[in-house]
């Protein structure tokens, strides 16, 4: 029994090697695209003067949630600047944004597919379970072999790791739409596409936004781990702090991740439940539009 061993690890390694050799062109293309995107976004953010960018973040907070979030954002981002963590924080933010956008672009259509097709749902569900339960660091290894050290393995691992909640929440949201409302769409002659766009997606939006919030948070946690794969940013700072046992640097890098996490969480969760934040700029604008008298009322009033 001692000698009994099935070399699953080796087999998978062989398969991955084969993939690497035969699909090198694709990996190169994907790698170049990702690093261009992330580096471009980082450069763009860094090009903006710090106070101006902080003001923009604060306004985003007020736009979707409240003036309190705006103030909190301004103070905490100033702290990041003061700790000398501004550049790594923006590098991490770029990685998270690019990874989250790609993840959402994949996850939402997959979720829609699973909501409409029982077979697809049955096949994809165990795959998603697998992706979510595998320890996150494990994704880094094949990603590094495919894309070599740098930001790209980090973003790829982040996408794989944060995909499942995006898919699941989308499927859940669409399946949870009141069937009578979907029937109403059919009963008035809507096409499946019109029902998806006009009924299912809008009604599932709060749930889907919940999934997007999860995606962003997972992406952030993975982006820190991506530091081990050589991605620039807060993660790399943490890795460096660990290897030199530099407590001060580690705490500062860690705090800047916390600041990012709180900001991203508050913004994305507010997007999912716009009705809950009555003092947000968006809510105020919406109320103003709703209170504008309708055309009919205007004409009757004019006649009186």
């Amino acid at each position: 029994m001692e000698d009994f061993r099935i070399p699953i690890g080796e087999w998978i390694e062989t398969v991955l090697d084969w993939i690497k050799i035969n699909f090198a062109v694709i990996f190169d293309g994907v790698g170049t695209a990702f690093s261009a995107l992330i580096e471009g976004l980082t450069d763009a953010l860094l090009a903006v003067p710090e106070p101006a960018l902080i003001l923009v973040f604060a306004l985003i907070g007020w736009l979707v949630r409240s003036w309190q979030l705006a103030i909190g954002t301004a103070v905490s981002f100033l702290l990041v600047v003061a700790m000398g963590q501004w550049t790594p924080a923006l590098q991490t933010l770029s990685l998270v944004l690019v990874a989250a956008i790609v993840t959402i672009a994949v996850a939402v259509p997959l979720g829609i597919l699973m909501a409409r097709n029982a077979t697809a749902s049955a096949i994809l569900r165990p795959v998603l379970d697998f992706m979510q339960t595998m320890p996150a660091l494990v994704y880094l290894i094949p990603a590094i072999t495919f894309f070599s050290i740098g930001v790209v393995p980090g973003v790829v691992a982040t996408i794989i790791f944060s995909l499942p909640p995006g898919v699941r929440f989308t499927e859940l949201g669409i399946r949870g739409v009141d069937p009578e409302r979907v029937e109403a769409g059919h009963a008035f002659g809507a096409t499946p596409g019109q029902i998806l766009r006009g009924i299912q997606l809008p009604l599932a939006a709060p749930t889907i936004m919940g999934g997007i919030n999860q995606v962003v948070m997972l992406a952030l946690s993975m982006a820190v781990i991506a530091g081990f794969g050589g991605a620039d940013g807060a993660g790399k700072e943490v890795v460096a702090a660990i290897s030199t046992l530099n407590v001060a640097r580690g705490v500062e890098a860690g705090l800047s991740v916390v600041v990012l996490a709180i900001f991203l969480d508050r913004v994305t969760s507010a997007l999912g439940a716009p009705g809950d934040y009555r003092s947000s700029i968006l809510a105020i604008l919406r109320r103003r539009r709703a209170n504008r008298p309708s055309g009919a009322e205007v004409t009757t009033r004019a006649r009186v």
Partner: protein
Amino acid sequence: MNENSSSIALSAKNVYKVFGKKPQEAVRRLKSGTSRSELAGHATAAVIDVSFEVKKGEIFVVMGLSGSGKSTLIRMLNGLWEATSGEVIVDGTSITGITPAKLRQVRSEKISMVFQHFALLPHRTVLDNVAYGAELRGVPRSEREKRAREIIELVGLAGNEQKLPDQLSGGMQQRVGLGRALAADTDILLMDEAFSALDPLIRREMQEQLLELQERFGKTIIFITHDLNEAMFLGDRIAVMRDGRVVQIGTPEDILTDPANDYVEQFVQDVDRARVLTAGNVMERPISVVAEGAGPRTALRAMRDTYSSAVYVVGRDRTLRGIVRDRDAIKLVQKGESSLASIIRPVPQAVSVDDVLLDLFVPAIESEVPLAVTDDRSRLVGVIPRVTLLAALGPGTTATGELTIPQQAVPTTVIDELLASGETDAAPAVHGSDPKEVH
């Protein structure tokens, strides 16, 4: 045949719907006599061998207890669910087995629907909800909004155009649902328990408004309900469903007075008959009637024979001319006149054959003789004595059956003679009503 089929808005032909495994085989077994309960383990037969035709402009009600298959049936009528077997024909087009695109066309042009829980789109304003059908059909915005505003006014929601559905009460939300279906401009309206979620007062109001709208637009309405009173109030014809089958189709009166089986009979037991049965359903042959040309003696004879204090006078064509009372007739005889003309009085309480019993109580109380019932050409077609009216409201007996007439009062002359011959009572007599008066 051609002429006939063009007056049919929708028909279902031997429609089945089975949920579960191997539905086709289940249908085959049902056709060869297997009962619904024998199938129960493998499949649910929700609708079994249902056939009916709905005429244009008709309100056709499908009624049955919860779980009897009503919702399943109505969803097959616009193809939301495909029939397992059988055929549904909408305005001459079979919707069984047609392409999805064709089916969508039928839905947007011919048949729309109102849902039990309203099924409004919560992120759209009332205006946009009502304009939904037109929007799907690609009608330009200004045009569809103009039409939607008219409909909103019509269903009594003017001023709420820009509100969101959840800012409205349940009754108002269902008005939006009704408005959305009306604005789709289809000839056929399907309504699945459309008023069941509303409280009773609002429900009655909506029912009345539906009848008004139907009268105005002549829509064909297929209305589902589990409430018999609602069925009776709205339906031109009613199909009663039980365990997936239609057990009786008929007018409300047919169902009430001639239930096809015990199930229907039990169902109709607690219906509010006063709102359903009409004067025409319960009236009796008029007997105390004389012709216009008759003299006062003939009239008196007729009164004596029918124990009544007055008789109706009709013309040659049986139109109701008036009423003659015994006292007037006696005076006329004493004066020696031979024509009734001078003593014919107008009938204050004639009712129409279509009046429901509820509207007969007050006239019946005020009328000293059995109520006169006239048809649309004012001909006297029947009378309704008070006992008949009361008996018609009771359960069990069919209103048109034989009735035992209560004992007649002893004529006054007899009592007078008796009183004159004997001694007086200890207590003074109380004067009651005229003993000759008919119940």
